[in-house]
């Protein structure tokens, strides 16, 4: 059972990690927690599901369109909900983020109704033996896809000029401007990337749980927030580590204690981290 729970945990943990990357990157550059991150996850899932259900678009096209929609929504959110508030008290954009989250949930409820939608494409999945361990091919695919996106993001940040420019803005905004870096554009790019990853996580989990609904982003969003804090908010490797660890802890907790405690595990971890090591496992950037 341990191995099975471990793999279950890594699968959901990979989704938390993708959302946590959005939290951590946005926190890094703006010093704000975007509590609407879970709604970007929901947006990605809905767009992909609706496109697939229409029968006009293939799976890969719908997946990419879902990511793009989440990314554009993230950029729009920054323009409407955060940019006008820059320079105000840090609690103000936080409230704005929570407001945006409630607004988007309600909007989805209005547009799509409260009921669950199954994922329109059925995946053939079976359990294969991998090095003596039973692995579901669906879980394997979800995990690999999520890890692939993480590697892409890490490579982008480390090897491209724009990636380095985002880090430069997070480290020292004025000096970045002296280099000719347009901070607003880098902030938009950060929202674009972080939101696209959240959208991807939403689609992957819509497949995994076979359910898409307006409030689907609420818990994963909060758990990914805990994951970002656990890993060290502001740290990109920290978000990945925190997400995977949290997913595994949650899954083991559900397996060995009671599945009723599953959701509690993430928040107990959040409280413990805040009490014992507020800077996270990998030291995040303090603001």
């Amino acid at each position, binding site marked *: 059972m341990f191995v099975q729970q471990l793999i279950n945990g890594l699968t959901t943990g990979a989704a938390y990690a993708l959302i946590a990357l959005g939290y951590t990157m946005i926190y890094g550059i703006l010093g704000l927690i975007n509590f609407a991150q879970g709604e970007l996850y929901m947006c990605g899932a809905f767009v992909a599901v609706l496109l697939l259900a229409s029968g006009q678009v293939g799976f890969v096209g719908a997946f990419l369109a879902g990511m793009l929609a989440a990314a554009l929504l993230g950029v729009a959110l920054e323009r409407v909900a955060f940019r006008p508030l820059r320079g105000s008290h840090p609690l103000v954009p936080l409230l704005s983020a929570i407001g945006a989250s409630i607004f988007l949930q309600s909007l989805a409820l209005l547009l799509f109704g409260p009921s669950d939608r199954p994922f329109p494409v059925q995946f053939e999945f079976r359990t294969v033996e991998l090095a003596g361990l039973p692995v579901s091919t669906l879980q394997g695919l979800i995990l690999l896809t999520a890890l692939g996106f993480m590697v892409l993001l890490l490579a982008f940040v480390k090897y491209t*000029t724009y990636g*380095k*420019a985002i*880090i*430069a803005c997070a*480290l*020292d905004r*004025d*000096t*970045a*401007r*002296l*280099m*000719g*870096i*347009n*901070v607003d554009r880098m902030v938009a790019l950060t929202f674009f990337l972080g939101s696209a990853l959240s959208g991807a996580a939403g689609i992957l989990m819509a497949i995994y749980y076979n359910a898409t609904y307006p409030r689907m982003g609420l818990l994963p969003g909060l758990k990914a927030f805990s994951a970002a804090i656990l890993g060290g908010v502001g740290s990109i490797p920290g978000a990945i580590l925190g997400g995977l660890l949290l997913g595994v802890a949650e899954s083991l907790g559900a397996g060995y204690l009671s599945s009723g405690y599953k959701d509690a595990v993430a928040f107990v971890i959040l409280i413990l981290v805040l009490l014992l090591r507020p800077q996270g496992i990998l030291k995040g950037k303090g603001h």
Partner: protein
Amino acid sequence: MLTLKSVQAGYGRLVVLKGVSLHVRAGEVVTLIGGNGAGKSTLLKAVCGLVPVRRGVVEFAGQDLTRLPAERIVSLGLALVPEGRRVFASLSVAANLELGAFHRRDRQQVRRDLEELMARFPLLRERAGQPAGTLSGGEQQILAIARALMSRPRLLMLDEPSMGLAPKMLAQVYEILGELKRAGTTLLLVEQNARAALKLADRGYVLETGRIILQGSAAELQEDPEVQRAYLGKGYREVWE
């Protein structure tokens, strides 16, 4: 090349520059000396657009910079080496240099410039992959200058490049500035270390509490009794006795 006409600037209600006029001609090395809080850094930031100009005009190569955002100014050929170096600590030395050329589109020339700078400052090549924050203060100053040079500036402004440097590093930094001068780079050098700055400069201005109180050739300023007393530390005894 650079002209300031009765520039006023400050932060919030605080007016730091109370109408400053100065100019820098192409090929010149001009120094701006003054004590703590005289407004030297504010002046450079106002030129760069990091601090808004409230009144007056800043012109560079015939263009009005007064309303231009900071990120547009570097592409006009104006670079600042900020006070305290401000290298991007967690980024590698190479990435810092790369970002210095962020606005440039001539990729091949950028690569050649990078090669040239690394040949000129071997320490940057040795440490290319290392985070900039692991360099010593003097090494960071050299990196900050090299990063600014990566933008191919027509006018290079430096804010207290000697700050906190050991004498040996100070000499090295000024040697680099001397090379830049001989190569014909226009420099605007802000310093508390008036001795080093006046030795290098052609002309100078003395800024005190937001106003230019004195200007002249570097030789004139070095001979000026007021400058000697206040900034060069000569004649302390006479004052005391």
